[in-house]
């Protein structure tokens, strides 16, 4: 009996070694947890920075949209018919009289058409299904199709 206890004690690890193992295991867990937390923090920080960037860009977009509207209006004011007419007169131009106009036939001349400020709405064309038939047909349909293909091939192979 004493011999058995001696043997058990001999093969039992020393308490400090067991403690060390536990500490190591705990440390490993902590390191892993810190690693996961670190990666998570890194990713979420990057996401937040990009999110902030997007928010800033949205604000910038709003501001640019306003500026575009404003400048379009200012440009229209500069190009208004009264302004343009005034400038033309200052430059020495005068309104054409009917008797001064000469009408010519120019082959290939395309008459001015009304303004197109945006593309015309197209009719939606439903594209052909991209998923292969194997993914949509039933097993029996597939078997039937395979069988008919085989039959066809066999009949073609006949001399």
């Amino acid at each position: 009996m004493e011999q058995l206890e001696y043997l058990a004690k001999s093969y039992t690890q020393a308490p400090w070694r067991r403690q060390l193992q536990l500490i190591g295991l705990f440390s490993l867990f902590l390191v892993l947890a810190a690693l996961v937390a670190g990666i998570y923090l890194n990713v979420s920080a990057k996401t937040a920075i990009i999110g902030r960037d997007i928010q800033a860009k949205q604000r910038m977009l709003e501001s640019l949209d306003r500026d575009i509207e404003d400048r379009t209006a200012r440009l229209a004011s500069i190009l208004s018919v009264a302004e343009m007419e005034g400038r033309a007169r200052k430059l020495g131009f005068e309104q054409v009289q009917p008797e001064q106009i000469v009408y010519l036939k120019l082959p290939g001349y395309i008459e001015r058409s009304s303004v197109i400020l945006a593309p015309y709405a197209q009719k939606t064309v439903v594209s052909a299904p991209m998923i292969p038939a194997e993914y949509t047909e039933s097993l029996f349909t597939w078997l039937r199709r395979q069988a008919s293909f085989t039959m066809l091939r066999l009949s073609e192979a006949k001399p």
Partner: protein
Amino acid sequence: MKDLDQYWRYSFVGALLCAAAIGIVLRIMSIQADPQRLKQLEAEIEQVTKVQKTIVPARGQIYDRWGNLLAGNKKVYEIGVELQDVEDPQFIAHAVSMIVPNIKYEYVFSMASLKPSPSAVYATLTRFAPQEAVDKLELLKKQLKEDYVANGKDAPSLRGLVYYPHLERYYPEKALASNILGFVSRDNQGYFGVEERFNELLSGKARTVLVPTDPNRVEEMPEVPNGASLVLTIEREVQLAMEEIIDDAVAETGSASGTLVVMNPKTGEIIAMATTPRIDLNEYWRLEEVFPPGSNIPFNRAVGQAYEPGSVFKPLTMAIALDTGAVTPDTVFVDTGSIEVGGIFIVNWNRGAWGPQDMTGCLQHSLNVCLAWVATQIGPNNFYRGLQAFGLGHLTGVDLAGEVAGRLKAPGDNDWFASDLGTNSFGQGIAVTPVQMAAAISAIANNGVMMAPKIVRSVINDGYQHDIEQRVIGMPIKPETARTLSEMLARSLEKESSDALVPGYRVAGKTGTAEIPIPGQGYTSNQTNASFVGWGPVDDPQFLVYVWLEKPSTSPWGSVVAAPVFRRAVEKLVIYLNLPPDDVRRRLASSN
């Protein structure tokens, strides 16, 4: 004993922890199971993580046919004070009242002096400060910052003064086409014209949304599409030319007002619509100076004022007569100077007898007696059925707010009498708008096909342009009737050597002079409505012009005051529309 103690201690701590865990789980479950509490919690979270924001989409732009901007948006600023940041309300009031137009020192001072509280954190000083004012304030702020560095706290401060940009409607052409466009008030509501008619489409839908402050939820930021833009059928240069012509005509003839409508009879597109008076749309608050309340002056007379048209109506009577076979161009009527219809005697404009006249002669000399006789030949049923087919008494559906239907009495109405058949035949006792008349007469110019008058050519929505289709609203007469009548009216103008004739271009048309009735007294005044309607070139009509001068004082006659306006309008139109004289056009066509 010691082990037992330790056992109890551990068990107690364990039980406490378990109880706490169970408590937390139960609380979570109770919150989850209570939808009201859950909702309240969500609201509390939203309050912290989201801010409420009202997004007002940019109002759609309005262009003329060639893409010239007629109505756009300019940047203006809301100026306000963040009350908790204000240090020097006196200086803010001084600076703002000096720099920003139309704002008083006392008002700014009272606003900037408000005590901040949970319910008062911000005060608006003005919502529509121009860019220039904000630039000046910004410069002042910069100078003050430099002063602060030099003088420390004693320097005056604009701290708390803030400004936020937004858009306001702007009309670069000012008063041009104002009667067509209408205007937008500062609360983004369209009034009159296209702005009112298409207000919802142009303004888009303003939305109050909760915007997440959390950058990780940035994708939740809602997108609010801008309002749709419109392309009109109007040509800016033609519109200006027509406005100048009608303004000159009103001044020369001493008329109370003038209206001029130019339409393409083949498509129904209105190329220009000039009426008086007009206002600079960027100063719409002066509306009451030009259109005093109670004066009943419509914003756009072309669609908003019905009047007795007089003899310009005669082509419609003749069209019905020819179409129903009641008369032919060669039918001869012997004019004895008066005719009795329904118990009243109708006389000619000069009270004279014109003797035997064919139907072209009746139109050429504008004989009331002849046309009243023609109406009796048509008969009341066919006559009024014909007028209804021409769309009279109904709205034309033109794309403008404030259109009125006019008045067409018909047999069966309480106020219709047998005598109305005679008077209506030459445009008396009937009320029409210039647009109604233009649309009706366009059927004669366009081989019997009447097109719906339209102002909006295309709508640009969601990044796509959609053209508005031309719409046929009726075929009141046969094509051959239309051609015959066009020829009769062209010949009658030529025979008359009318002031409406345009060298090089064959035009058809008719003058009109209508006495203005005084309510309760009848046609006792000397005031008239002078009109002219004409179109050309007769063999391939490209334009129809309707002129109306209200109460001209130099001469009461349409042939004297309105016909020359038509000629002046056509002389300009043929240049802007690139229409060569008839002989040149035929020569160019034959060289194909």
